[in-house]
């Protein structure tokens, strides 16, 4: 292992320990509830990062999978009294069904796919709003039970936080391992040189679909978590604004970075929640932050380390 790998691993572990340490330190505070929402959105963005950053599939309808997961999971929670883990399974199945419906759109590329996925998201939002018997429509579904895992009911923001963080860690690790496997290699090839990939025997259409299918899993889980933590889901959460918010998180965090998805979610959620005194200027502030970040750090928040190293190098060179 190179020194760089060791350093990165150490930083990662320290960050992870720090994240878990937040739970006892901020038990019962608003900040911890805020972090629960950051992690839920980060999960949905993590799946989108896999599609956009790893596979080059620019999906502008990701909120649909967040919604499909939520409604799929909540149905089993409310009607069949399933617990959280089986509900996760149901959410994944429903979201995958959505991915199958979206699959024919993958024939389109670039902005054409982006447009079509936007339309897909808009259609699904309409379905969520109209299928009142399944989704409760705009009024939503209420009295959704809190998370329950292996007989333990998880109530309060400390438990919610630990659950959501753990799901995030598992998904993060799963994608990190996947991208280091042969699957990751082939997917890199599809994005960087489609012709080279085809000439190597890679079925590009299949790879793009697999990436889409894997990328709908984290938002499906996020949907269930959102519903159980808040005990309510309304269709308005899964509208086009949400899809735009998610893609913005991915880009602000750094398209090529998994942890960037969570960093992007942190920035977005911070601006959405904290500046109470200037609430009406929230989007103005957010727009400014996003624009500034894109100019200063085109690689997103995740590229800050590299940018700093570059700046230090430049300083050293200037001195010589």
């Amino acid at each position: 292992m190179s020194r760089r790998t060791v350093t990165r691993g150490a930083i990662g572990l320290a960050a992870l320990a720090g994240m878990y340490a937040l739970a006892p330190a901020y038990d019962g505070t608003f900040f911890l509830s805020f972090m629960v929402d950051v992690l839920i959105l980060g999960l949905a963005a993590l799946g989108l990062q896999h599609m956009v950053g790893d596979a080059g599939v620019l999906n502008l309808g990701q909120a649909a999978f967040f919604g499909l997961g939520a409604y799929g999971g909540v149905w089993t929670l409310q009607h069949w009294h399933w617990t959280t883990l089986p509900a996760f399974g149901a959410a994944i199945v429903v979201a995958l069904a959505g991915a199958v419906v979206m699959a024919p759109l993958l024939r389109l590329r670039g902005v054409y796919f982006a447009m079509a996925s936007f339309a897909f998201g808009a259609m699904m939002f309409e379905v969520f709003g109209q299928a009142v018997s399944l989704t409760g429509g705009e009024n939503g579904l209420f009295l959704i039970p809190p998370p329950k895992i292996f007989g333990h009911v998880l109530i309060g923001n400390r438990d919610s936080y630990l659950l959501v963080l753990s799901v995030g860690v598992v998904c993060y690790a799963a994608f990190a391992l996947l991208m280091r496997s042969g699957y990751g290699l082939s997917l890199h090839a599809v994005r960087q040189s489609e012709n080279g990939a085809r000439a190597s025997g890679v079925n590009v259409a299949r790879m793009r679909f697999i990436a889409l299918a894997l990328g709908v899993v984290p938002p499906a889980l996020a949907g269930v978590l959102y519903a159980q933590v808040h005990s309510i889901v309304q269709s308005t959460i899964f509208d086009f604004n949400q899809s735009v918010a998610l893609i913005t998180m991915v880009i602000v965090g750094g398209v090529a970075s998994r942890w960037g998805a969570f960093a992007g979610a942190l920035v977005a959620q911070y601006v959405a929640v904290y500046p109470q005194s200037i609430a009406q200027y929230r989007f103005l502030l957010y727009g400014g932050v996003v624009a500034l970040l894109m100019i200063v750090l085109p690689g997103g928040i995740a590229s800050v380390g590299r940018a700093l190293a570059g700046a230090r190098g430049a300083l050293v060179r200037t001195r010589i």
Partner: protein
Amino acid sequence: MSLLELTDLTRTFGSVAAVEGVETTLEEGEIRGLIGPNGAGKTTLVNLLSGFLTPTRGHIVFGGERIERAPAHARVEHGVGRTFQTPQVCAGLSTLDNIVLGSHRRLAAARLRNLAGRRRTSLGALRREAAAVGGHVGLGDLLATPAGALSYGHVRLVEIARALMAKPRLLLLDEPVAGMNEAESAEVAEIVRSLPAEGTTVLVIEHDMPFVMGLCSRISVLDRGRLIADGTPEQIQRDPHVEDVYLGSLA
């Protein structure tokens, strides 16, 4: 039985026939040259053989199977490999990873076996094999270098190594020595010459006449989409028709 049989192979773009009525056979173990002036349809023919284009008309029989409708990735499974005139490598991946990609089919198979709980054909084993193939084509010192940082000649070698990882029965080389100096092109000739012994038949497009004449056992000449001559290097050099359309202009 011939390894490859082309019957009336035709591809039109609108009213223009890029390749028209091409009929030829390739025998196992051959090194076949494909020459012709610019725009003669050479690359189109390679695209038809590798599945990057489907023919408007005609058949491609490879190893006894009709493959003209098979998509590009399936042609690789049939045993057809290729390189590109403009190299198509992943600039952000290392030379080694680019070569490993050539074993995609075995990677995928290994994944399935892993799922079934059978013995693991690891990425590590394929990496070691790719390092050996890379060393064989002369990239031994550059395996860790990102492909985007390689020279043009080295990128061509990456493509050849990547294609060899799939152990193709037929390798299509589209101008493998373009932009290379004499020493480099002699090395490529040496690599290509060693392929038939390993079960790989070669079809090579090249404008470098000494390279083609010295390397190939047979040469086909394409002009305006039609095959106008087929023969040994000596026959082709003596063919007055060929001289008219091609060699004469270069001599």
